[in-house]
């Protein structure tokens, strides 16, 4: 382990996000588990189809507020190699880590391996729905893999499951508890500026985590008020003095939640830019857009800018959902599409991109727009 650690730390010196972890794991496949054992590192694993980043981020805020030293993997590096990288970066040359707690946001397909390697103290399952069938396969299959990994957990581990997701009811563990709206004591509301159903679920999840870490559950709501939205997850910014909000949409469930939020705010007639890419990280199959219930488009009068590598598929979907084709402006390239959006007047402009479109957008906007 020492040699792998030294080599990967050396590589980490040159920067790069997941490469040190990738190399470390190649050299010592049990690297994560060895670092965990050596440091008696407790961890909280957050996994599920949607809400991982927001939930982990909120937990991070709670721990910071409580002055607890912790490490966490960066969003977007949520495979095993990303977790390994986070641990390598935190450890000294001997594999010692200062913090006693790790927050690991884990891709749902990588969760079984991560659970085996980390032996986490707490696992949070946010929800499960169809996402990128080309990558993750069927929901039933994934649930079976999750259950198998739960069976390998130490008996002291806690499993926290979102009560609102009926499909998760199949998961069994002796120390499994549910969190969510249907449970007593769940009355706290997430600040409205975030919006979206998954954010409310994140708050309930972190309240539950707090209880098991002997922290005050009220901290979750307190920190939620203070924490800025994660990158692209309901984040609001200003450009030429106008307000924009970006909401990542990556599968039918997240798109539906965001669309519902727009409907609840009565903002379905504000300027929109929808961006659909079909790169590996988005899922190369775009069929899922046909499972999104795009309501209220028949009454829309303002143009919708549709962009991304599969802009024309999305435009067609919107047409069949009742949007007048005259209001659909198709521009596959993100930068010119953004320029078109800037010209449309409105109180707040919404950008709904898939994952790689979000990354492109960030480059287009440049850093200054973000702060």
């Amino acid at each position, binding site marked *: 382990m020492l040699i792998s650690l030294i080599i990967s730390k050396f590589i980490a010196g040159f920067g790069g996000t997941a490469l040190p972890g990738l190399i470390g794991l190649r050299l010592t496949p049990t690297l994560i588990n060895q670092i965990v054992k050596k440091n008696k590192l407790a961890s909280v694993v957050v996994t599920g189809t949607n809400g991982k980043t927001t939930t982990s981020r909120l937990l991070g805020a709670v721990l910071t507020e409580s002055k607890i030293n912790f490490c966490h993997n960066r969003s977007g590096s949520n495979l095993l190699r990303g977790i390994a990288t986070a641990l390598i970066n935190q450890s000294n040359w001997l594999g010692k880590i200062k913090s006693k707690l790790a927050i690991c946001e884990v891709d749902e397909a990588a969760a079984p391996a991560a659970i085996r390697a980390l032996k986490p103290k707490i696992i949070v399952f946010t929800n499960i729905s169809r996402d990128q*069938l080309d990558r993750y396969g069927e929901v039933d299959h994934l649930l079976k893999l999750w259950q198998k990994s739960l069976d390998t957990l130490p008996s002291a581990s806690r499993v926290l499951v979102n009560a609102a997701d009926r499909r998760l009811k199949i998961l069994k563990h002796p120390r499994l508890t549910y969190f969510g709206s249907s449970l007593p004591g769940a009355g706290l509301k997430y600040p409205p500026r975030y919006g979206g159903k998954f954010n409310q679920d994140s708050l309930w999840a972190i309240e539950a985590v707090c209880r098991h870490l002997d922290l005050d559950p009220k901290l979750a709501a307190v920190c939620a008020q203070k924490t800025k939205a994660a990158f692209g997850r309901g984040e609001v910014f200003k450009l030429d003095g106008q307000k924009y909000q970006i909401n990542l949409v990556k599968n039918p469930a997240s798109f539906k939640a965001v669309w519902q939020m727009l409907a609840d705010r009565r903002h379905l007639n504000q300027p929109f830019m929808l961006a659909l890419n079909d790169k590996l990280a988005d899922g190369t199959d775009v069929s899922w857009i046909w499972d999104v219930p795009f309501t209220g488009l028949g009454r829309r009068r303002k143009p919708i800018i549709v962009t991304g590598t599969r802009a024309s598929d999305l435009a067609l979907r919107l047409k069949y959902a009742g949007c007048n084709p005259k209001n659909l402006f198709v521009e596959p390239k993100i930068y010119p599409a953004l320029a078109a959006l800037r010209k449309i007047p409105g109180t707040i402009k919404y950008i709904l991109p898939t994952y790689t479109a979000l990354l492109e957008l960030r480059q287009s906007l440049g850093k200054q727009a973000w702060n």
Partner: protein
Amino acid sequence: MELTLVHLYPDLLNIYGDQGNVAALNYRCAQRGIKLKLKNLGAGEVLVAGSFDLIFGGGGQDSQQASVSRYLPGQSAVLKQAARRGVPMLTICGSYQLFGRYFKPFTGPMLKGIGIFPAYTVASKTRKIGNIVITTSLGKLVGFENHSGNTFLDQPGLALGRVMAGNGNNGTDQTEGCRVNNVFGCYLHGSLLPKNPPLADYLITTALELKYRRQINLRPLDDRLEWQAHQTAVKICLKSGWRNW
């Protein structure tokens, strides 16, 4: 004019975007003033002979497909008779497999099909995933395949089309799908009908001609967006080359 579309087991077979095919039929009928009545056939319900002009069936997860294989054989006689009459049907992925003689999953017992297609399907270890373009008598069709089953036709001549890029029925003989009379089966999700308008219109035309016993010429629609989506998908698929891995 009026048509009745029966959607087979939508509660069980509804994988990624199957609904798009129904939406396309619905939209393209509505634009021409044709009323499309949608009936869902639920688990355990009986399909009555003569109660439909069009059939659609989608795909599902393994366990749901197993459930369907318990209900579908009961409707076999009615479906076969309609198929012989020329009633148009579109079956995709899971329902395509069960319109063949059988599907042998990787684990578990063999699932009995209804044998409208002279074909059988066997699960394989490699999943065939990616964009796919085929050439058919209705022109190029483009979609997205995602299946582990390998389908073999008794006669390759019964294939719906030939694979230009992608895997198709079994990844080896370059056939994709099957067509018997006006019953179509294939692995193309995407959704298939929205961006392949000639197939959608063929299904509608055939259903109308059979019902009203006269030649039908559907009014052309403004399909610019449809063709743009079609061509973009074809381009992406052909660019990624033969065998889309």
